[in-house]
């Protein structure tokens, strides 16, 4: 399976809470009308300029093992190294909200509209995560389709640069996935262009394989511990999803 997926903009407009979290504003905080106005303006710009698109390619465990090893710079002990071996299916992915949005953020900063530029940056970052959510849900739906006991299958994603997977892992990931097809390229420093992009692996398998203690050596340096939230989501979505349902937010452009 290798799919290029066009993602509907309106499905990835982030919530106020998600964008505010990236601005350091915790949930439930009382914010001024100026901040609400900035968020509304940023969402409007996002809706005008975002061009979300994604690519996903299924991969065998053996091939992923080679990609995950990357340039040999990963931490010695990582959750992904253990989890992917127990997976039912794996897929590489990349997604972006496009260069236009990045250019718009830069333009705002150049014009000293720091507050709006920064809010748009947060909205775009949260939007990329939502785009990855859409791809994840799509992959999840292909995994669970036809499986009666699909509630016990969950998908979790990991990206180079996080959880002990060295950012240099991007090179082999790109060689396999070829996201240049949707306009994502890799810089010499392994960062993606456009900058508002995400890449990584979707690991699908029994719910139990996804749980781990975030006590790896690198976890102490991680301030987000987003894995906890994702594990929580898995735990609480077991009874929520409809079997084999394909998310409404995607259009498959081409299947190869």
């Amino acid at each position, binding site marked *: 399976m290798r799919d290029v997926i066009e993602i509907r903009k309106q499905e990835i407009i982030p919530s106020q809470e998600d964008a505010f979290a*990236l*601005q*350091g*504003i915790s949930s439930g*905080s009382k*914010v*001024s009308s*100026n*901040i609400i106005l*900035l968020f509304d303006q940023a969402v409007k710009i996002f809706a005008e300029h975002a061009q979300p698109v994604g690519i996903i390619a299924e991969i065998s465990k053996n091939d992923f093992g080679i990609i995950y090893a990357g340039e040999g710079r990963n931490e010695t002990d990582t959750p992904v190294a253990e989890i992917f071996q127990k997976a039912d299916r794996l897929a590489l992915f990349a997604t972006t909200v496009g260069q236009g949005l990045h250019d718009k953020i830069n333009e705002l*900063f150049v014009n*000293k*509209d*720091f*507050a709006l530029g*920064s*809010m748009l*940056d*947060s909205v775009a970052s949260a939007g990329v995560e939502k785009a990855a959510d859409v791809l994840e849900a799509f992959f999840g739906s292909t995994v669970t389709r036809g499986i009666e006991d699909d509630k016990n299958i969950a998908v979790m994603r990991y990206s180079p*640069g*996080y959880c002990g997977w*060295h*950012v240099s892992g991007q090179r082999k990931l790109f060689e396999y996935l070829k996201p240049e097809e949707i306009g994502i390229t890799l*810089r010499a*420093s*392994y*960062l993606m262009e456009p*900058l508002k992009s995400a890449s990584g692996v979707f690991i699908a398998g029994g719910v139990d394989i996804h749980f781990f203690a975030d006590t790896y050596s*690198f976890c102490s*340096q*991680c*301030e*987000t511990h987003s894995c906890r939230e994702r594990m929580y989501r898995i735990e609480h979505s077991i009874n929520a999803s409809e079997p084999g349902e394909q998310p409404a937010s995607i259009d498959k452009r081409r299947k190869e």
Partner: protein
Amino acid sequence: MLQNPASNLHQLINVERSEMDILRQIALVLQRGDSSGINELLQQALDNKLGPREILDDGLIAGMNVVGDRYKKHEIFLPEVLLAAKAMHVGMDKLKPLFLKDEVPSRGRVVIGTVQGDIHDIGKNLVAIMLSGAGFEVIDLGKDVPPKKFIETAVEQNAKVIGMSALLTTTMPVMKKVIGELKEKGLSGRIKTVIGGAPVSEEFADHIGADGYGYDSVQAVDCIKRLISAS
């Protein structure tokens, strides 16, 4: 005709009061992040014969200091700081031409950037904006900055401090590389280093030999102020 000394005194007091009022208003408008209101007030202050240095120090910088304090106390949020920063820049653009070339206020030059392999720059941008609001000249190298670029720019620009930011744990070693190369080149005494970013800690800063650590943008600016005054 003799002038009434009491009346002169009243005039003097009124002038001082109106000067204080206008500077206070500038500081307040800046705190509100009202960029469009700042220009009009600056013009009023200049019409009242206040000097650019006084307007800068007692109006704009005084206002920005309050913003920094309130942010430190979690009374306001990042977007409000950035709105104030824009007002600060608007004000500086108006005042700068009034300073003689060699009098353009600068507390020192700082090279700043997000380290190679990392693109997360909100914190770095905030530090840059706050530094420039505090009167420093900031050379912002952006994101994904290689060690060589930090050092070359700092040397070329005669900067006193290099500020480095990282959000990814995997890119933190780049900070160590910059500090190591500064030492190798015998520049570590002359160019100080300050690091920050979500995964960075004071212990890490000590471990890699950084001169300073900023938990947040306000602390980073305080730290840079201290390092520059000490040098």
